[in-house]
Structure formats: C-alpha cells, structure tokens
C-alpha cells in the first residue's frame, strides 16, 4: 500500500546538504545529500553501522554536523525539535520505572506551556486523543513494565504524537514486535502520513517499500530513489556482498 502523500509537495521538511560526520577516526557519513518534502513518507534503509541512527540523531539535533548543513522546517534542527515526534528503537528508560502509560505519554507535552507547576487539563486531553489514535486508550493506567513489545511501540508512538508534531521520525519501530503487529503499525503510519511527514528507519527493505513513498538507501553515502527502483543490484551495492532478493507479501 502506498501512502497518498508519497509524492513530494511544497518546500522541504528536511534538508541535508553535503553532510559528513565521523566518530573519531571512523567516518560514518560522507558527503550526504537528502531532501524530504512536506508530506512525504520516506524509508531509510541500510546495513548495520551504515550511519542510519547517526543521521537521525543529526536531524534531531542531538549531534552537530561536522561538515555540511541540515535544516528542519527551514531552521536548525535544535530549533525545530519540538515540531518533531520521535520514536526511538531502544527506549532510553528502564522498563521497571514506576510510571504509568499516561504519565509517560504526557511527557511528550513538555517544552510548551508554563515552566513551573503541573500538567494542565489540555495536556491530559491531548494524551487521551493520542492514545485513542494509536488504539491504546485502554492501556492508559497500565504500568509501562507490564506492556508487550507491540503495546509499548504504540505508547511510544502516542508520546511522539501528543504534542501535534509536523514530522514523525521513527528508528526501527518494528524491531521488537511480531509480523502481524508490524503490519498494524505500518497501516497506522500510512494513516498518520495523511497529515505528517514521516521518516522511518528500517532493516526490512522489502516490507518498508510496500508502505513508503520513497526509499533512501544509506551506507555511509546515500542513494535515494522511489520504491520501484529497489533492485538486487542496488541491494548488493548497499550491503556490500552477494544477496538473494526474495519478493514476499505479509
């Protein structure tokens, strides 16, 4: 299923120009160019250590580019952070933390409103809407430690959506869930793409290409193309070895 917003429209939501980045001696990204238009659904694929997560961290403003530039919604990434909803691959919190789903999701509302004091009624209402959108309203009072992988993924998505972002960035959102739930998550993302620009990192190139408008293949450098152009030759070039391409439907 292709998203209705798969064709680029308007100015870029994310602009990456001649970007290079290294951790010490190890060059992770090299002269990288990428442009994602408002309303696009782009899948970022590539081998492990190919620089996918580093690129996401640069787009989120958690790392500073060493060469080249990045703009998000026409601004520096740090200034556009609040317009981005982010779903991490590995949650940065312990699962036994004493917190309920609704207390976690409401943290997505931080950064707006008053500096002091507690959350307001509007914040709690937004949590309810976000949980309903990801079909997790019944989980609101549950402790996060009691959630399954698929349930946690939906809750993380609700936390990313609760502040009404313009861009949704997801890092391997289906890595810890089963195939049936994976399909549900992608259906949900396709629906969200009606109003959001989506950048999604995934290891599953074949599955991703069923849903996204465009695939960006990253292995230190970037090759960007539409989903129809994903060929065995390209995958072989990307992953650096002989590969067998298997077409499959879920």
């Amino acid at each position, binding site marked *: 299923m292709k998203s209705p917003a798969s064709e680029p429209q308007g100015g870029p939501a994310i602009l990456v120009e001649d970007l290079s980045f290294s951790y010490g001696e190890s060059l992770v990204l090299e002269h990288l160019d990428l442009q994602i238009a408002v309303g696009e659904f782009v899948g970022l694929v590539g081998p492990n250590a190919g620089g996918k997560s580093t690129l996401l961290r640069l787009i*989120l*403003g*958690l790392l500073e580019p060493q060469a080249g530039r990045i703009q998000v919604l026409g601004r520096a990434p740090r200034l556009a*952070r*609040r317009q*981005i909803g*982010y779903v*991490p691959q590995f*949650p*940065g*919190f*312990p699962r036994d*933390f*004493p*917190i*309920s789903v609704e*207390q*976690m999701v409401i*943290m*997505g509302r*931080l*950064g707006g409103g008053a500096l*002091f*004091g*507690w*959350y307001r009624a509007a914040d709690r209402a937004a949590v309810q809407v976000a949980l309903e959108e990801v079909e997790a309203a019944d989980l609101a009072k549950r*402790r996060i430690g009691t959630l399954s992988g698929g349930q946690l993924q939906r809750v993380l998505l609700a*936390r990313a959506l609760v*502040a009404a972002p313009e861009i949704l960035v997801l890092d391997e959102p289906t890595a810890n869930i089963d195939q049936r739930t994976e399909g549900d998550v992608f259906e949900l993302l396709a629906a969200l793409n009606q109003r959001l620009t989506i950048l999604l990192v995934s290891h599953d190139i074949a599955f991703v290409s069923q849903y996204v408008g465009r695939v960006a293949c990253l292995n230190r450098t970037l090759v960007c193309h539409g989903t129809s152009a994903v060929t065995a030759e390209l995958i072989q070039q990307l992953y650096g070895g002989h590969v067998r391409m298997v077409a499959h439907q879920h």
Partner: protein
Amino acid sequence: MSGWWRTSIEMSEFLSALHQHAFLQTALLAGLLASLGCGVMGPFVVVKRIAFMAGGIAHSVLGGMGVALYYGADPLLGAVLAAIFAALLIGIIRLRWEAQEDTLIGAVWAIGMAVGILFIAKTPGYATDLMSFLFGNILLVPSREIWFMAGLDLILVLAVTLFYRQLLAVTFDEEFARLRGLPVDVVYLMLLCLVAVTVVLLIQVVGLILVIALLTLPAAIAGHFIHSLAGMMVVATLLGSLFTSLGLAISYGPDLPAGPTMILLAGGLYVLSALLSRHLVRRRALRRATAS
C-alpha cells in the same frame, strides 16, 4: 513473652523521657525532618540509580566540614557548600566525561574525605568528635539546627513541587527530555544539588557513612509495592519517620548508637520487603501462567 514485656517497658521509659527531655524532642524532630528529605529525594536516587554519586557527595562533605571547623565557621554551613560543590563537580564529570565516571567520582569521594581529615587534624583546640561526623549523633543535634534543617526541607519540597515535571522527565528519559527542548544538563545538576541538600540533612542524623542507607532504603522498600514516583515519596517519608523514631526509641534504653540502630531497622525491613516482593511477583506469574 519476657522480650515483649521488656520492649514495652523500654518504650514507656522512652516516651516518659521524651516528655521530660528537650534534647530527645529535638532528636525526634531532627529524625522526622531528615525523613521528609529522604522521602522526597530518595525515590529519585533509587530510580535514577545514582546512589554512587550520592555516596561521593556525602563523603566529600567532610572536606567542607573540616575547612569550616579550621576557620571557626559553622560546620553545617561548610557541609552545605561542600555538598553543592561536590554535586556540581560530579554532575559535570558525568555529563562531560561519561567514560571515566566511576573513577572520577571515586576520586572526588576520596579527596573530599582526605581534605576533611587533614583540616580537622590541624584545627586548633579541636574538640569535635570525628566519629559524630562519620556516624552522626542525633542526640547532639542543637535546637538551632532544627530551623536550619526545616529550611533545607522547605527548599527541597518547593523545588520538587515547582519542577516535578522536569525532574521526572530527566530522571525517566534524558534523551527524550532533551528532544522536548528541556535544559537537561541544568535540570540534572539541580537534581544532584537537591540530593546534596538531602545528604546534609541526613548527616545530622546518621552521619556521612550511613547516609546512603537512609537515602535509598525507605525509597527502595516503597518501590517494591508502589508504582508511581509521587506515591513512593509519600511512603518513603512515612517509612523514614518510622525508622528514625523507632531507632531512637530502641537505642535509648540500652544506650546504643541511634544512627546504626535506625539503619539496621531499615536494612532488616528492606530484606524482608525484597523477599516478599519477589514472592508476590512469582505468585502473580504462576497465577497468570495457570490461568492461560
């Protein structure tokens, strides 16, 4: 039966002495004020897993106390300044040189203590018992320090009430908090400074060696059964009050040191609570497995 009888006699002696002696009333009040501090900040220390940092702060406080004594200033003021300095130093170390965190915190810990011991040793006409700093003596808390402790409690409660959202967010998920535009480093350093203030409160009661126990055990026991940070704060405060008051009462009759008595009570209940909590988790898992 005779054990219970003896205990009840000792308790009634304690209550009678409490009624008569102002120093015991002050000690009880100091214990309750310290319990409020450990109840409010302990859950942050436990869930953020920063007990080692709190230990570094606690031990480096001796440096501030030693310097204050040497120059004839109030050791408690020296303790507060040293605790805040150590908290900021340890916090900045953690934020900037994460790879060497353990070693560097250990260095701050040891250097602080060494400075304190040197200054105390060279203090002219030094009369203060080093042991009372290390192990505390709740019976010797001067009544004027009760106001100081109440002031520190007020700072803690106000700061946590005003910045609860930010403190919770940074304790829970620093990266996400940063993405929401929170000044994570500032909030993190504030959290450590509040822990430092709590450490000074508790040093009055149990001394700097045993601070970590009173800071973590009531909160850890609460965490076995309560599943919200705010709930843990209430229960940890109540438990802290129980341990300090009961520890004071039990130690009074046989003239035992009060601090270690309180810690043994807390430690004993922690072990029981951990076993019970583990048992309940297993039972729930078994019930779920057999029901499916």
